């Protein structure tokens, strides 16, 4: 019953961790994706999640946002137990998070502006249509798109613009928690850097907590406060990149000290010395 209360029990921006995952197990038939995975995301941080292909990064995100029913384990999001509850009963939490899917997942029959209006209309029908349109417009601008983009359909946008439009929709309800699934994949380096900056700015202005799945080493170095590494069906380490390197785990070594890792590292140290 408690899950139906629309208001946050702990208030906006309380200090407790917005995501706590304990003993998560995900199994598809005989294939075990996660086996006793633990993870805690702190409030106000950008947590990067890395791992080889097929280590279950997306499955973990889907479990946390309730799209995937885990085989076992407990997940608390924003102070509420997500596991063991019907999807329809989590409204109190769903209006406090925003999700950006890999391809943007925009509703293709609606314009970008209307896409942003959908969650507003769904959760806050009492807001007048004019205000709703204005909110949609400034969210579009906030996500770094030009104003005219609000009138376009997703099929008329480039891949990078689709991601920004998806971000605008994810931000529609002023969420406390933002999930980004490979936001910079498929973007050109300039666009990717701009998107990173945007994420960081938004986190700082809006006080967001960001759960970010990425393969982009530049993103990890530039904007992530901590990085969680998925391997061997668990989160094997969480921390800043120097902390991770201290663990000496071979996969982490290879990931961050490979040729690409080194150049991203060099870029960051150049930036810091400037």
């Amino acid at each position, binding site marked *: 019953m408690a899950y139906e209360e*629309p*208001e946050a029990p702990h*208030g*906006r*921006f309380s200090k407790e961790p917005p995501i706590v995952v304990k003993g998560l197990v995900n199994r598809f038939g005989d294939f075990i994706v996660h086996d006793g995975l633990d993870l805690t995301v702190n409030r106000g941080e950008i947590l990067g999640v890395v791992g080889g292909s097929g280590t279950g990064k997306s499955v973990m995100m889907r479990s946390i946002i309730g799209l995937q029913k885990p085989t076992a384990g407990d997940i608390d999001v924003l102070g509420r137990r997500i596991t063991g509850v019907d999807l329809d009963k989590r409204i109190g939490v769903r*209006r406090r998070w925003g999700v950006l899917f890999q391809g943007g997942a925009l509703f*293709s*029959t609606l314009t970008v*502006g209307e896409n942003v209006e959908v969650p*507003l209309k769904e*959760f*806050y*029908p*009492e*807001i*007048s249509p004019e*205000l709703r349109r*204005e*909110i949609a*417009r*400034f*969210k579009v*601008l*906030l996500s770094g798109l030009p*104003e*005219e983009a*609000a*009138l376009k*359909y*997703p*099929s008329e946008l480039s891949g990078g613009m689709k991601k920004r439009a998806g971000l605008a929709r994810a*931000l529609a*309800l*002023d969420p406390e928690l933002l999930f980004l699934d490979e936001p910079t994949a498929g973007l050109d380096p300039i666009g990717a850097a701009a998107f990173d900056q945007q994420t960081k700015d938004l986190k*700082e*202005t*809006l*006080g967001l907590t960001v759960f970010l799945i990425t393969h982009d080493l530049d993103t990890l170095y530039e904007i992530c406060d901590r990085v969680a590494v998925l391997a061997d069906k668990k989160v094997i380490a969480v921390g800043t990149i120097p902390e991770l390197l201290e663990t000496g785990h071979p996969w982490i070594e290879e990931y961050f000290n490979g040729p690409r890792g080194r150049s991203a590292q060099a870029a960051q140290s150049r930036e810091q010395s400037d």
Partner: protein
Amino acid sequence: MQGAVTYTLEDDSAGACKLVLEGQLLVSSIGPVEAELDEIDPRFSEIDISAVDEIDTVGAWVVSRLAKHNDCPITGASDTAKHLLDAVADTVSDGDLTPEHVPVWERVPLLLGGRVYQARSGFFGVVSFLGAIILGFANLARHPSRVPIRAVVRQMEMVGISALPIIGLMSFLIGIVIAQQGAVQLSQFGAETLTVNLVGRITLRELGVLMTAIMVAGRSGSAFAAQIGTMKLTEEVDAMRTIGISPIERLVIPRIIACTFMMIILGFYSSIVGIIGGAVIGQFALGIPFFNFLERIQEVVPLHDVWVGLVKAPVFGLIVALAGCYHGMQVKGNSEEVGLRTTMAVVSAIFAVIVLDAFFAVFFTEVGWG
């Protein structure tokens, strides 16, 4: 106090009016008071938000909009609020985003003209599609090794073999209905035996093929449009082109061959099952023994009735396949288009089949195959 925002108007000593906002200025609480705030009449000269506990971008937007309308300063903003107000201020723009309103006397001719152009490009589209198919066939005729036999066989299975149960059931029931209803009417003239003529001729000449064509349009024509349309959306068709595979040869022609050829078999099969349905009713309701019914069919149905059915069937199959593939290839943009094109494929195929059937009816009577 949770989730509420309240406002009061205070007159200060100088006679100026001050709007004081309190509580939570959030997207979840702004709805009820937003309209009231807009309508406050004595214009105020200051907005005090020092008593606001929590604020988000929507709250900041509403406050800054109010401030702009009344041309007054915002006071008492906390650090967070200042941050948000700045972020929101950056996005303010005066651009008018409502689409331009076109008056009705311009809109109607515009729409009409658009339709005419659409019809023109639709016509060109059909012609060039047919041309591409003919070229495709010509290419395959020159290089027989390129004929996609596996695809053709697979389509034949999907269009033909898997349709056998449903078309059989449908034809059997139609045979029953024709025999039973026909017998009721013919018995008024004492001519129940003519039921055999009715069932035999109508199923072989008309209904067997026509109903099958409609069923195939619904089953396979729609599937063609949806399959090819989805492949267009996911850029599979473009990928084929870049690899040097012609989508017409690989996707369209196998479907056309399969559908045209299987329609002949399905149409004939449907007629036969229809006759069997009639014979079953003859046995149980009309007192005509089952095998006598079948023997009588051979005597009373002229052979050209069979030919009429067999000539019509491939033409109908061709039309169903062409409509499905054409509309599939026309899909562009979004997933809604796939549904739209699928519907159009089925509707236009059935329409064309019925029009052609009427034409065939007149034609075959004129040439003496009455």
